[in-house]
Structure formats: C-alpha cells, structure tokens
C-alpha cells in the first residue's frame, strides 16, 4: 500500500500557504464565537438575581425563550459548545496519536455539533421540558433597586438587550453614558435619571433612534447574518448539486429540461428576482433565506453539471458500473464526490453574497422587520439621517470584515483546489 496524500490533504496544504486565507479562517472563527456567545457578551437579563423574595437565574431560563427563533438555535449551540469542544479535543488527540498522517475529520465534528444542536432543539420543543421565562425584560426601577439593600444581580458583560429601548437616550454617539442626575425643567431640582439598573453603563457604539444599543444590535445581527448566509447557501447547494448532477449524468431530455430551467432563472437579474419574491411573498427572515436559496441554485447546478459531464466518461465510472453498481449509486457515491470542488469554491462567495443580499433587502425595507436586529436595518436607520454616523460606519465595517473574510476563504479555496488558476 502506498501512503499517498488524500485530495483534502493536498487542498489543505495549498490552502495553508495563503496567509490571508488562514487569517480569515481565524476571523471567521472569532465571528462564530461572538455569534454563539452573544448572550454572555450582551444581554439585559441578569445571570443571577437575588432579593428578599428569593434567588432567581433568569438568564438561564431566557436562553430557551428568546424573542427571535434564530436566537433559540444559537443559544442551543452555546449550551452544546463546551461539551462538544471537550469531546472533540479528546477525540482529536487520540486520532492524532493513532493516525499521525491523516487530517482531522473536521466535517464529522461539524456534523456532530449540528446534530447536537438539533437534538437539543428537539428536546426543548417538548413543552414541559423547556423552562419558561418570566424575566423577558428588566423592569426594576433603580431607586427600588438601590433601596432594597438585599437585592443584587450579576449581569453579562454588556447589560443591554438587542431590542431594549431607552427613550431617554435616543441617537447618542459612541461612549455615551447616561448622567446620573438630570434637572427637572419645571422645578429646577435634581432628579435621579437612572431608572434602570443598566443605565450607568456606557453605550460603546452609541444608540439608535429609540435608544437601542448599537453594539448589542450588531452582535445579535451577526447571528442573523450568519444564519441567512449558511442556511440560504445550504439550500441552494443541495438543490444545485442534486439537479446539476442529474442533468449532467443522465443527459438527454432531463438535461435539456433542467438546463432550460437554469437558463430561465439565470435570465432574471438575481437581486431583482429576490426583491420581487420577498416583496410579494412577505417579509420574514425565513422567507429571505428560502428565496435566496431558491434563486441561487442555477449557478451551482451549472458548475456541477459541467464537472459531472467531464467525470462520467472517466475510467473509474466504467469500473464502478462493471462491478454492478446502479446508476444512482455511481452518480452519488462515485461521480459526485469527485465533482464537488467547483461548488465548494462557490460556497464561501455565496455566503458572502447572501449576507450582502440580506442587508440590502433590510436596507430597502424588504428584509427583517424591526425590532429584530440586523445590520441592514441599522444602515437603514443611518440612511435616514447621516448625522448619526455611527449607525452607518460600524455596521458597514462589520459587514466589510465578514464579507472579506468569507471572500478570502473562498479565494484561498479556489487557489488550493484548482491548480490551473495558479498560473
């Protein structure tokens, strides 16, 4: 037996040569951690709350009862993260020792994580199991909070919620901190201005027009952006790969039909088609994901079709047939895994594109609805008055970083997978 390198080992070796791509993988990892651990970084519900009535752990209950469904899954990902990480580390160490020349089964790790999240989600869907949450928003007044000597609470790093409004401090610039006292315009006397217990904390990136903290909204917006990117691209990769493979492998009438459908959908300008569908079908993050998924597949299908057309005449296919494999088995077991690379290259670019599309839709008012946090909505609020520059600059920056990271990964993957392009 020869100990040759597997395809993915070659790709990884090539990929590692590009410092920008490796760097952006790290950036993406950090972004994912921020998205997963958003409630630890920023949330207006205390971890621990104690007064004379007793002790409560509202944050832990709120994890399973968030306002957004997207948050529900990300919170489960957070719950599952450390057990998964420990398992992965143990497995990886043993795997390394046993097969030092092999790559770690990263795909399997990801699949296990996804299954863990889905499993947890399933368990907590059962009404009795999910803890109910009575602490949706914090409503204890500051005075009461101060007067009750026994009351104390421990908050996450930034004690603001993504949809928590504060009409006392609308559109405040970065690092605005609410003054403790304010003057009553009628009587001239000093009044306590801090009404809620998080009022003393500075808004690091400012607030929007109803006093929601921009940084917190950006952190939670990252969750929506990543979800839209991954789910939409997941949908269109599956559709594109299956249809493209069938068209390329079977040829004939099926090929003509699928190619014509591809042509028809590609004739519509992509953003216009998405805008039409979202505008006509209604606005919700799920519709956006599905619509991007349903309109993006022709590109993938074309790539896969071309690759399958090339592969199906190779010797190994004939060999597989000779062993008596059925058409379906040959296609999905032998041909398809060898034809995936162009689609894999398209995926990171697709994710970046989907994130941009979602933000663009929200900017036009066709996307996610207020008060859900989305970078596009922040831009929309900023576009109403450019005086509030922090509503434009910071989401732009966040989008630029995310999109660039995905694009760089895609670029590195393309260079690694396709030696012809490395001229």
């Amino acid at each position, binding site marked *: 037996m020869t100990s040759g390198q597997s395809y993915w080992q070659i790709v990884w070796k090539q990929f590692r040569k590009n410092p920008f791509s490796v760097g952006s993988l790290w950036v993406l990892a950090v972004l994912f951690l921020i998205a997963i651990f958003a409630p630890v970084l920023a949330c207006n519900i205390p971890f621990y709350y104690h007064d004379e009535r007793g002790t409560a752990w509202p944050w832990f209950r709120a994890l399973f009862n968030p306002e957004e469904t997207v948050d529900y899954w990300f919170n489960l990902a957070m719950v599952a993260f450390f057990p998964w990480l420990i398992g992965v580390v143990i497995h990886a160490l043993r795997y390394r020792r046993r097969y030092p020349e092999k790559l770690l089964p990263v795909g399997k790790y990801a699949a296990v994580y996804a299954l863990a999240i889905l499993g947890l989600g399933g368990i907590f869907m059962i009404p009795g199991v999910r803890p109910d949450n009575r602490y949706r928003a914090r409503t204890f007044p500051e005075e009461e909070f101060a007067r009750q000597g026994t009351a104390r609470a421990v908050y996450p790093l930034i004690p603001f919620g993504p949809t928590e409004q504060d009409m006392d401090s609308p559109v405040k610039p970065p690092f605005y901190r609410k003054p403790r006292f304010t003057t009553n315009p009628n009587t001239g006397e000093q009044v306590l201005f801090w009404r809620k217990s998080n009022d003393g904390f500075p808004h690091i990136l400012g607030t929007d027009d109803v006093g929601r903290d921009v940084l917190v909204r950006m952190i939670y917006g990252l969750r929506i952006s990543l979800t839209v990117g991954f789910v939409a691209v997941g949908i269109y990769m599956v559709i594109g790969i299956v249809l493209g493979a069938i068209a390329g492998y079977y040829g004939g009438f099926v090929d003509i039909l699928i190619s014509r459908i591809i042509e028809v959908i590609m004739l519509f300008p992509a*953003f216009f088609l998405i805008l039409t569908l979202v*505008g006509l079908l209604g606005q919700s993050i799920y519709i956006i994901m599905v619509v991007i998924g349903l309109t993006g597949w022709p590109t993938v299908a074309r790539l896969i079709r071309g690759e399958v057309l090339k592969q199906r005449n190779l010797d190994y296919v004939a060999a597989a047939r000779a062993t008596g494999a059925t058409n379906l088995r040959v296609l999905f077991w032998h041909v398809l895994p060898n034809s995936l690379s162009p689609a894999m290259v398209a995926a990171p670019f697709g994710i970046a594109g989907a994130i941009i599309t979602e933000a663009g839709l929200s900017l036009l008012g066709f996307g996610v609805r207020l008060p859900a946090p989305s970078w596009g909505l922040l*831009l929309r609020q900023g576009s109403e008055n450019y005086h509030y520059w922090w509503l434009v600059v910071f989401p*732009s920056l966040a989008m630029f970083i995310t999109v660039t990271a995905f694009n760089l990964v895609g670029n590195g993957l393309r260079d690694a997978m396709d030696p012809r392009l490395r001229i």
Partner: protein
Amino acid sequence: MWSYIVRRLLLMIPTLFGITVVSFCIMQLAPGDPLLMQLGATGLAGQTTQTREAYLIQKRDLKLDRPLLLNFRYFRDYSQAVYWAGYYRVASQSQIAAELAVLAHDPTRLPNGHERLAFLRSLGIPRFRARLEDPAEHARLAQAVAAYVQVFCEDLGHHGVPFAVRLLESPDVDRQVKIGLIHALNSMVVEPFVFTYSARPREEETPYVVGAWRLWWKRTESTTRPLSSTERAELESRFHALCQMSQTQLLEELDYLDPQTVRFFAEKLLGDSTLREKFVASLALRRLVREPLRLDVPADAPESLVEEVAENWIAHYELYRQRYEPPFLLRVAYVFTDTQYAHMVWRLVTFQFGRSATKTREPVATKIWNAVIVSAPLMLMAELVTYLIAIPAGIIAAVKRNTLTDRAISLTLFLLYSIPSFVAAMLLLLFFCYGDYLKWFPMIGLHSQGAENFSWPRYLLDYLWHAFLPVMCLSLFSLAGLAMYARTSMLEVISQDYIRTARAKGLSEFTVIFKHALRNALIPILTLFSSFLPALLGGSVLVEYIFGIHGMGRLSWESIEQKDYPTLMALIYIDAIIVLLSILLTDILYVLVDPRITFSAQGEEK
C-alpha cells in the same frame, strides 16, 4: 451563419415562454389583491359603490376577472345561479335570515331548497357551513349573503347577461325577482349602452351608438315637439358650423343648445348622415338628455317601470349579442385565449404594456422610458470607468506578475470587491456629502434645483458633479472581477509560444505586449460584454435608492412595493429579451473577432 442565428432566435421562444410562466406564477403566489390594496380596502363586500366601481373597471381593464389558464365560462349554464342571485338581491335581510333557518334545518321544506343551498355555498362566504348551523349567526349571515351576492354578480361579469335577460323575458318570473335581476345586471355590466363615440370616432361604433339612441327615440318621439321649417333651417346651418369646429370649441358650443331641439339631433343621428355628423349629433344629444335610458329600478318599483327597464336590458342584449353569445368556434378559442395568462402573454408579445396599476395609471412604456433615460447614462459612465480602470490594471498585474505591484493591485481590487455597493455609497455620502466632514458633493438627485435653466456646459458640469459618486459606486463591484479576468487571460496569452517567438525575434517588450499579446487577451473579455447591455438598462436598486435617483432600479423597486404587476411584467420581459439578445450578440462577436471559432462547430455541438 444565418441558420445558426435563426436557430438561436427560435430557441429563445421556449425560454421567453418559460419566463412568462415563472413570473405569472410568482404573481399568482403573492397574497392579497393588488387592486384592492390600492383602494386601501381589505375586502370588497361592504365597500361604497364608487370604490367597487373603480375596482371593477380596473379589474376588467387589466383582464383580472378572467380565469387563470382555461376559460370555460362561455360553456357554462348560469341560469340557476343568476335566478337566485336576482332573488337574493332584493330579498330583505329578515326574509333571508328566516330562509337560512329553514335551510339549515331541512332544505326540502323550501321550493328548490337544495339549489338555493348550493348557490349560497358557491358565494364563498367564510365559514358558511358552520355559521349556517348556528342560529345566532343567521342575522349576520343574511347580511353577508346580501354583500356577497353583489360580489358574485360582479365576478360573473357579462357571462351572466344572457341568462338574466332570458329570465327577464319569461312571464312566469316574479316581479320582485325581476327587480333583483335588474340590480344584478347593473353589477355585471358597468356601462351597458354607449351613447357617444370615443374621442376619435370609428365606423364600428355606429351600430351601438345609433342602436342605443333609437331605443330612446322610440320611447320619446311622441312626446317631443315637431320643429318648424325656419327652426329647422337655422339648426341646419348651426349644425353645419358645429361639424366644422375643433373638439374643444365643439364641447364649449354644445353648452348653448336649446333642450327643445332634441328632435333635430335625433333625426340627424338616426337618419342618413356621415360619421362626423353622427358624432356631433350624439354629443349634442348626450348634452341635452340627462338620462336617455333607465337601467336601474328602486326596490319597490311598479310593474310598468320594471317592464320598461327590462325592455331596455333586453334591447341591450340584442345589440351586443355577438359579445354575449359568440359562435361555437370562437367559444372554443376563448377557452385558451380569454384567460389572464393569455392576455398577459399577448400584451407582452405585442409590446403593448398598457397602463400601470398604480393610482396615476401612467402608461408603462412611458414609465420605463423615463427611468431608462435616467439610469442608462449613469450605467454607461460606470461601465466605461470600469473598463478603463480594470483592463489596464489587469494587464499591468499580469505583466509584472508576482511582483509587489501585482500583489498590491490584486489586494486592492479584492478589498474593493468585498465592499457592497450600497455600503460604499453610504460611506461616500457620509464622508463627502454630509456637511459634518466634507461637503464636496450633493446628497440627492442628479440635477441641482433649477438646472433646467442652466446653459448646457453648466448643466453638463452640474450633472457630472451629481453623478460622480453614484458612478463610482456602480463601477466598484465589477471592477475587481473584470480586472482579474483581464489578468488571467493576459497571463494565459503571455505563456503561449508565439509570445516567446516574438520576444526571441528581438521585438521590444512594448510591442510584444501591446501588439501581440493584448489583442488576443481581450478576446475572452468579450464574454463580459453579454452583461453590458442588461446592466446598462437594469440599473442598481440599492445605489439608486441611496442616492435618490429615479432610474430603472428605483422603478423596479417601486413597482414591487406597489404591486404594480403590469410594470413588473414588462420590466422582467424586456430584461429577459435584452439578456438573450446580448448573449447571442456576444457569440456573434466572438466569431467575428476570433477566426478560430466558427458557427458550424458550435452548431454541431448542440
């Protein structure tokens, strides 16, 4: 070559057909009635007469009252449904409620109980069955029946007219039902009689106009005063003058007519006269006679009035018989051609996009043209800027391959590629237009206020000043792609043998690159030309939205927002045609530029 082009053009037909099907399906999928939305209503039942009429006229105008794909309405027998529509149209609500109570209990106790029940079910009242079984609901259900019967008649449209007229003619139909049928007819037909010609009179309209007035004249001839010969002569000269006048003059002059002279005009119209004379006479009569033919009756009308109005409707049916009961073959054809889909396809194929479905009812073609002349120059400039920057950049990067210059160019372009155009637009606006930092460029629009009065150099400068930032944003995205493309194709060419030969000959590097390599490197860039025209006419929704430019992108956004289907369909269709044509054009250009490629080879492959 020609056979290839023809074949490609023929292949476009199924593709375009597919596009119409897809867009038609999308629009059917969309919830909500776009016409109702414009009227600001959620349901038709219980709206004012004016709202309903506006809705109906628009609906029939846009052919939205037709079935979607197949129209069997001309083959259906609606006599039962029309009878019951007439019946319930005039029945009082307490009476309906009482009947509902009986129907819920035992339908056979009422004459034709099952028929009634079937009709009431077909009205589409929400939760009809459950409400029927609940006695407490009967009063409200009766109210709903009254409202929905009206909607039923309106939806039935002219298909119900023959059946209603036949019922009006038959002697054993109750007077009350006849009144109801007349009400129903009034909902089915918006304007039964045409009393005047359209602004540009046509000969085909004559039978209808004359027919309507003849019916009126038959009723009123005995009551009008005969004219003396002097009067007649005077009127004759006046009428002659009227016929010579222009439209506006004529309309003014008609206000001064004497009501006593109707006989003269009636004789003119019904007698032997030219089209112009008939036109003027019909206008005059319309001015003089307030209500020539009664078409509606109050609920408690006496027998004679009902008879008179019924006679009018029968006459109407006779006059328009061709429309109501077309010959058999035509009916078969209507199954396929008189549907929403067929009408839409026909409008698109003949490029008659009609009027938009917005409140202004602007013609779609005008709307699109106004948008194109705004966004096309912008996009043209953007494309030019892209090509002028990207191709040199790509070539420089290729020639100085793997040097610092190459890396710098590639990285810069890559970063530019990662900035979404709308983010770039907002940041540029923030830094260069909003007064807090630099106020170099205007915020919104493409012209300053009062730009119409500028001299043309100033107008042009003003335009360029406004267009600078939008053009920058529009060219940003395609810049990187194009430059990378140029770089790759240039690298491929440089590594060819003939370039080595050229260098070996001792040609200068400049000659090698610009004379030998560049020409061949530009051929693959032709592929991108296929996106040139579509982009030119497509515009960009987001950039136009941010810069407040009313171009194509903005138009498509607005028509989606307002559910303006005619405009939307036209936009999709025009865009598809342009994309298909520019792909074909690119292929032809390829063959013309590169002798290695021929049509026959491509033809064989297909």
